[in-house]
């Protein structure tokens, strides 16, 4: 293969060499089971606990508030189902947003089938959740609110801290009135390691994270569970993770995740600056060189490396295939690229018409991208769009929509 330009960091990242190095020891040298009592196994136990402390540190939490999981999806399932079932005597209502990751949305949909009620809050055109709608959705039966920290497709960063404050007030009153408290969960899979996080400032009770989104290994993540949170386990078995998550610890993965957090704490600032400069350069050039493009997501409150655009009159997969042939890896929210053949629920929630959402492209930048990478994209994308547009039966329509046009021009 010739040139390869990876612009899909929100999907996954390559594991940092230093992380791989730290993990190695625990595959076949210090391979003991942390639950065993002899000294050899205790080395593995210590490594797991050291990693736990590192996670606690990056979140400003306590080590005993961290539970390791197999990744972000398990952490989300654990948080939502765990709270729902542990508190179902007190209420059966959950509030979330329309733009959550499927790990949250499909968990909520499943719970609806089990008799829980879920309200899906809308967002404004930038993807920010509507706080009034959220406030009004709260009922006496509400036990959990789950809103993502930043959206994986458009990069918009949600006002978690504000929601946390609103809930603190509400919970104060609830406790004096003997009503159930509302727990607050955030899926921070896209933000941990990218922007500073403090669970106390955010005011969350639960927070999900995943290693492979910030240069850690795949197959490992964690759930922060604030002390005194009433939660049920998802996996039952041995007494691992303080009885919260059964199963022999993924020691190499956990060590790797710990190392990933340690590195992120030191290098976060640097990690944020570079992709932002490159992202801005890419965004500017695309807007200049291609007409009828819309930029999705919030202009400022957005992840530094994320650029999501809709290119009108063309379809996303056909752009991705052409980019792939140029050695460029990106993604799309087009119906044609989704396993379900539905356009991105996130773009639809922003109010984008389905045929425009069809032409979505997401570039997510990270640490290994260079100016040359970006310049290459800027060079090849406009001709790709031009070629596909020449093939399209769509033309400019009214109100920013598309018009199906087979008439003579």
């Amino acid at each position, binding site marked *: 293969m010739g040139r390869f330009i990876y612009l899909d960091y929100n999907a996954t990242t390559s594991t940092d060499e230093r992380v791989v190095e730290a993990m190695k020891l625990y595959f076949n040298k210090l391979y003991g089971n942390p639950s065993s009592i002899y000294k050899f196994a205790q080395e593995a136990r210590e490594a797991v606990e050291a990693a736990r402390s590192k996670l606690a540190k990056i979140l400003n939490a306590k080590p005993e508030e961290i539970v390791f999981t197999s990744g972000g999806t398990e952490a989300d399932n654990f948080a939502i189902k765990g709270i729902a079932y542990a508190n179902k005597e007190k209420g059966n209502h959950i509030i979330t947003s329309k733009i959550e990751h499927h790990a949250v949305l499909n968990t909520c949909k499943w719970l609806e089938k089990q008799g829980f009620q879920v309200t899906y809050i809308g967002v404004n055109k930038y993807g920010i959740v509507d706080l009034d709608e959220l406030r009004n959705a709260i009922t006496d039966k509400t036990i959990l609110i789950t809103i993502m920290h930043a959206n994986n497709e458009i990069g918009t960063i949600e006002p978690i801290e504000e929601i946390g404050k609103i809930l603190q007030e509400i919970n104060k009153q609830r406790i004096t009135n003997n009503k159930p408290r509302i727990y607050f969960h955030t899926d921070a899979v896209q933000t941990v390691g990218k922007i500073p996080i403090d669970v106390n400032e955010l005011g969350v009770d639960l927070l999900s994270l995943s290693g492979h989104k910030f240069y850690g290994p795949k197959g490992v993540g964690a759930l922060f569970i604030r002390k005194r949170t009433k939660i049920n386990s998802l996996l039952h078995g041995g007494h691992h993770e303080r009885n919260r998550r059964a199963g022999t610890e993924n020691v190499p993965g956990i060590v790797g995740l710990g190392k990933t957090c340690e590195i992120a704490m030191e290098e976060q600032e640097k990690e944020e600056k570079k992709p932002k400069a490159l992202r801005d350069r890419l965004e500017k050039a695309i807007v200049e060189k291609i007409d009828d493009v819309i930029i999705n997501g919030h202009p400022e409150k957005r992840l530094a490396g994320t650029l999501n655009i809709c290119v009108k*009159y063309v379809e996303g*997969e*056909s752009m991705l295939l052409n980019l792939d042939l140029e050695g460029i890896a990106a993604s799309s929210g087009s119906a044609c690229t989704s396993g379900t053949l539905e*356009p991105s629920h996130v773009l639809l929630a922003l109010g984008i018409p389905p045929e425009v959402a069809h032409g979505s492209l997401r570039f997510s930048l990270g640490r290994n991208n260079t100016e040359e990478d970006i310049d290459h994209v800027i060079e090849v994308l406009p001709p790709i769009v031009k070629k596909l547009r020449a093939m399209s039966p769509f033309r400019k329509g009214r109100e920013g929509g598309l018009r199906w046009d087979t008439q003579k021009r």
Partner: protein
Amino acid sequence: MGYSEKVMEHFMHPRNVGRIENADGVGRAGNPICGDIMAIYIKVKDDVITDIKFETFGCGAAIATSSMVTELVKGKTIEEALKITNRTVANALDGLPPIKMHCSLLAEDGVKAAIGDYKKKQELKNKVKL
């Protein structure tokens, strides 16, 4: 994305792209599953499709099947063209990934719609003559 070489070849170099001014038949087809669309334009002489062009807004499979169907149809009689199914098109491309089979319907429907439009126009013409 799991496409055959033939699909990629047609996708990168689609045949018969564009529209025909004064077409004898224009067909539109939409894909109800993913929402993609295509338009087919045909020229007919003595019951034979002498020229055909397409415009497609869709995935790689949609573009490749559009291109392939125009090749299959060109030079065929109306009757022969009507026998072409989405399977014929997919097979001519060495198959499609299962999730992309529905895209080939666009090609079949587009051709049928264009022929339908042609027939309707013929009827109208004949009526006028009478």
